[in-house]
């Protein structure tokens, strides 16, 4: 790289020119924000560049991390467990000095619309911090716990509070996702039939909004 190019990249907040190896599709949410900024007339002038209006949070960098985790064996004697998956996000792209202002986990399913597991059936979703062995960290309760009568195509969870300490440059984020068939007295279905909704699990991604160092300086000046 020429010194000029290095210096320009640095001024754009990049330590080097990125070299993506197998880039995937652009997440629709990022396209929407990008297009909105380009096309809409903004009331009161230009959009604030250190605020993400779409999420109503401070920030100038929005990243979507793909999940690189694997499915875990269900081997434990938990008859109602439908799915157990390690969610692994490589956060090495975060740079020193960035401040996290929003973290949103998205779980996607293959359903095209609302999907009921079975009449009256409930699916329970739990998310744990993972231990180094990729299991729920012992002695700690779930980060998040939800019950669903209907699974939508996409479920969004705010992980901001949980990630305040976890999302940092050079760190990875490892979580364990469990979906199980909810307990109900007198259930007659087999465990597998009770899990029907969770079989459509498709993918997971993590959206992070951060405030870069330049924006933090600008905000403190203001």
């Amino acid at each position, binding site marked *: 790289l020429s010194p000029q*190019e290095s210096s320009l990249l640095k001024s*754009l*907040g990049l330590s*080097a*020119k*990125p*070299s*993506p*190896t*197998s*880039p*995937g599709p*652009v*997440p629709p949410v*990022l*396209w929407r*924000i*990008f297009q909105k*900024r*380009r096309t809409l007339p903004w009331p009161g002038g*230009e*959009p604030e*560049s*250190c605020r*993400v209006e779409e999420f109503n949070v401070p920030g*100038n*960098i*929005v*990243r*979507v*991390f*793909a999940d690189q985790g694997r499915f875990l064996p269900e081997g434990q004697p938990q008859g109602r467990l439908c799915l157990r998956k390690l969610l692994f996000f*490589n956060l*090495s*792209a975060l740079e020193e000095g960035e401040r996290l202002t929003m973290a949103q986990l998205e779980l996607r399913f293959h359903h095209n619309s609302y999907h009921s597991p079975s009449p009256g059936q409930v699916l329970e979703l739990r998310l744990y911090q993972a231990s180094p062995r990729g299991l729920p960290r012992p002695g700690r309760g779930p980060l998040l716990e939800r019950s669903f009568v209907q699974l939508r195509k996409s479920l969004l969870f705010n992980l901001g509070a949980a990630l305040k300490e976890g999302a940092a440059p050079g760190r990875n984020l490892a979580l364990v996702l469990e979906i199980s068939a909810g307990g109900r007295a007198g259930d007659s279905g087999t465990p597998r039939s009770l899990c029907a909704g969770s079989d459509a699990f498709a993918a997971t991604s993590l959206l992070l909004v951060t405030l*870069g160092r*330049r*924006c933090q300086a*600008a905000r403190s000046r203001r």
Partner: protein
Amino acid sequence: SAPSPPATPSPLCKPRRLYISFSDVGWENWIIAPQGYLANYCGGECPFPLAAELNSTNHAVLQTLVHSLDPQGTPQPCCVPVRLSPISILYYDNSDNVVLRHYEDMVVDECGC
């Protein structure tokens, strides 16, 4: 019929058109969008006496005055951006993550002396 003579470009300080194409600088393989943008630049003179439309500072007014008296020792004020606007860039990082980043001060909207 004879073509009309081209309009003489104004020599005064004002934004000039500059389109930056990311493929021209070899960044097309990691920047997803936009492919380029109208960045503009400031060009032109800040002559004595400075007209009101030149967005001049008091300092520039005095500098042009001194320049008119001593052209060798004191340069004319510079023509510089006085209002810039942000743009958003969508790109892939080294880990193939998709990043949307808002950058301040990327487009020259107004120039001044």
